[in-house]
């Protein structure tokens, strides 16, 4: 089932002479459960693409349809609600709310939605992430790797349509990187989670099902490497 379709997406910053085309008429679609890696040099527009997909940035023209919803046509409030139910976001750093502990940070989308937490699902995720002993810790008491794990947990908690991760291991050492990617893959397999990961690390890209290469705002390569 098609979970995501991007149609003629363009994003232009600035005006006139100083105009920068971050994305130039990008179109593609993704099936549910696919693990997509987006690679490209810096300034290629991959972050911009991710942000638009996550509903955090708006395109200049084009459409993004997630789970049959055209998110580019939603107003701010509807978009926010959509985000917390259907999209999981993981950034490179500064993901967590400093005043909330691990448990609260992970449950954040649900808390915002006012929904009851499925404790079994929660327990499952927490244990998989190896954080069961640190549920009441605050972010400033966790290491970088642990913080990223919490972010992943948060991204997965609400069973979103897609999970978007922008260089999730960029800030971590190699051991932690391996662990994080391992977790992402595991969740992807177990929950059939559609996953987008931006990375400049080829090793990570090769762990995905499909690689999208972006250069100068255009998709230059779209290769499925495993089914």
């Amino acid at each position, binding site marked *: 089932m098609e979970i995501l379709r991007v149609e003629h997406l363009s994003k232009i910053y600035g005006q006139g002479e100083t105009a920068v085309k971050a994305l130039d008429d990008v179109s593609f679609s993704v099936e549910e459960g696919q693990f997509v890696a987006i690679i490209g040099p810096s300034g290629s527009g991959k972050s911009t693409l991710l942000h638009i997909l996550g509903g955090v940035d708006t395109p200049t023209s084009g459409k993004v349809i997630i789970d049959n919803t055209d998110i580019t046509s939603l107003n701010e409030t509807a978009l*926010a609600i959509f985000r917390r139910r259907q999209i999981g976001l993981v*950034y490179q750093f*500064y993901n967590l709310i400093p005043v909330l502990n691990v448990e609260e940070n992970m449950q954040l989308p649900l808390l915002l939605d006012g929904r009851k937490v499925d404790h079994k699902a929660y327990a499952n995720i927490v244990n998989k992430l190896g954080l069961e002993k640190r549920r009441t810790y605050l972010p400033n008491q966790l290491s970088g790797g642990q913080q990223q794990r919490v972010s992943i947990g948060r991204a997965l908690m609400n069973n979103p349509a897609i999970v978007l991760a922008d260089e999730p291991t960029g800030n971590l050492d190699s051991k932690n990187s391996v662990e994080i990617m391992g977790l992402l893959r595991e969740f992807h397999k177990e929950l059939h989670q559609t996953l987008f990961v931006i990375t400049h690390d080829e090793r990570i890209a090769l762990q995905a099902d499909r690689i999208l290469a972006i250069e100068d705002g255009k998709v230059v390569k779209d290769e499925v490497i495993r089914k």
Partner: protein
Amino acid sequence: MKVIDRVTLQYMKRNKGRTWVTILGAVISVAMLSAVIVIVCSAQDMLLRHTIESGGQWETRFFGVAADKAAGAGKSEEVASYGISTVGKYASYPGGEATNKPYLYVSGETNFDIFNTQIREGRLPQTDTEMIVSESFSLKNPDACAIGSRITVSFGRRMSEQDGEKFELGTNYSYGGYDETFEVEEQKEYTIVGIFEAPDKEVEAFGAYRAMYGLDEKALPGNGTYEVTVDYNNYKRLGNKIYTISGELGDTLGASDIKYNTGLLGYLGISNDSSFMTMIYMLAAVVGIIILIGSISLIYNAFSISIAERSRTFGMLSSVGATRQQKRHSVFFEAACVGAVAIPLGLAAGIAGMAVTFKIINPVFREWMQNDLGLEVSLSWGGIAVIILFSALVLLISAWIPSRHASRVSALEALRQSREYKITAKSVRTSKLTRLVFGFEGELGLKNLKRNKSHYRTTVFSLTVSVLLFMTAYTFSAYVRKSNDMIQAPLSYDINVSMSDDADSMDRLSEELMGLKGAGSAVAVKKLRGEVELPADMVGSELAAVYAEENGKYNISVQLLAMDDASLRSYMQEQGIAEETLSGDGLNGILINRINFKKGHEFAELDLLNGVKTGDILDFHVTDGLKDLAEDDLKLAAVSGGKTPFGDKYVTDVYSVQVIVSMEALDKICEMLPEPKYFVTENVYYTMGENENLEDEIRTICNKYRDVSSRVNSVAAEQKEVMNGVIIISVFLYGFVALIALVSMANIMNTISTGMQLRRREFAMLQSVGMTPKGFRKMLTMEGLFYGIKGLVYGLPISIFVIWGMHRILVSNVSFSFYVPAGALTGAVAGVFILVGVTMVYGRRKARAGSIVEVLKDENA
């Protein structure tokens, strides 16, 4: 300019908002400081002018100076002007014998201006046969004081006798308090050339009006000594040197005694016991310290925030090799820039603000002081120096600690921005209840409050202080107002003329006063004070409490009251007492037994005497303390419970019993007295009607009767006086509170908006996770709400406690029970939430600036 300074300046320019808030805070602080100093200087200036207006500008007076030495004062280069006076002497004047001021106190003067002698009519005397008399004398003796008329006075000495020995009564012996005779020594005739007013001179001698004749310095009569009064050059600058200079001059003049113008010198702060100025300075110091503390907290906060924002820059400077000193320097440079702008602006603002305030309150002020002197802005160079010094000090202190923080920021810390205020699980813990009641956004809001202890404390502290000051000021004002209302409440008349001294003249004066038109109503009452001896059981407990029991009996003070016919008739009608009751032979009286008594805060009806009924006979006598002067049987023709048709609606003390009698009966007893004037007084009570000039007309009539001691009491005028005082106090109080509130507000806005700024990334992240704009608003609203509630939770109880303390202190002067004005509460609550609301709105706008993704990508956020 050093590169660090350049960077600092650039930062300040780029963050205009932050810089201006800091400058504004500093300006307000300096302005407040200036205002306090200006008030002190201006008040001092006004008091000096007042003193000079009253008694002239002079500092020292030398006594016992010989005629040939007197003019020596002019030779001293310290002396700006001087005056030579003869020693004053009493002189009786024709027609003064029967009055209560039968003398003139006469002196010869070479210099009238030095005493600020104001000529009202005519001119100053030039020879020793020309005389000027005081205005109060001419008012009582208008015919004798026509310009050009001659007056013959008899100089002499007031003599009295005690234990067989004769002694002289000097100027500080009152007239009428002693048996005195006047021994005439010589008579002199003068031509009256002018009428003057010189307040200080007027009260130099008891029992006498003031008069002065001209004296020629070059032709001083050789016999006798003189007094030399001196005004020094630049007396304000001399300070304590006045004493040494005067000492030397005294030696030169051969003076036997030196006295100083303690009033003037006191206000300059150089009198020997200048406790007054010391008190003023201390008061100013207290207020100043409060301002300083408020200012320091505001400016410290502002700098702290500025440092926090620039921590990256500081870290970077570190990594490039800047020393701690250089980084500290940056902060002090910022402080210096702020100071350079804020101090002149604040000084100007303070002075201008005070000028405007004075202008506004001067009309009220003049009425209150009952003179023409308003407050004028006056500021000595010393005062300016104090302001600048203290302002600089404030800036220095405020910048000191932040500068040390700045200098310690290491490169790594700053670059990573990992140095957040330490958040612990305990510090941000909230109860489960919070989420239930306020929702998750609310819980987040509350946690946000708790995360930064110093921000939280600053804000709550500022709010609490604002609430406290506002409520205290408001309540104080309300209490003063209410107090005044209550004092006036019992009175049922507007003007009261009280007379004593000469019984016959009093009657005539009374009659004339009653004839005035345009009053609402008028009642004339003649009162005779006497006593009645009663057995203890007849005397009510309240009354008995003020007397001493003697052999089971009390000597109760009884006042016989007789009214004019019309008033008596209407009173009796009102009380339902038949008209004939008081007619007939003998002393018949209506006893006013039941009164409205106010004890503490409660009213009660009280019987003064127990077991009295119509027909009882009381033994009324008038005594001079040793023997009975008159006596009669007072038959109680009626016992009444109504209030008197004049006088008070209720009383707070009882000490005498009043009995209404007929005028004939009262006069009959008076005839029995050898000297009725000691026991009889007369009052006329008015209520105001359409005649606005009633009071002036009353005073004119009273002045005509020289032998009657009369006093005109206008409730309206008194009330106006108190109200004026209240207005003045309120203006300053509210002004002060408004400024402190402004400082607090600036503080709070600064703190909260900064907090917002620092959390932009976090806000962006919340939005990215799916917090709706509504949810975001709710979170910030909750934060504001919590701040407001905390501010009130601390502020209100403390305020109520302080107000209660205030009430306790005032309780002796205040006759109402403790209460908190509703206006204070509503004002405080409304004010707090408005303040917080505005700040939140402002902060929210800053927080939402920039789209989510921009903020997230912006590492500088």
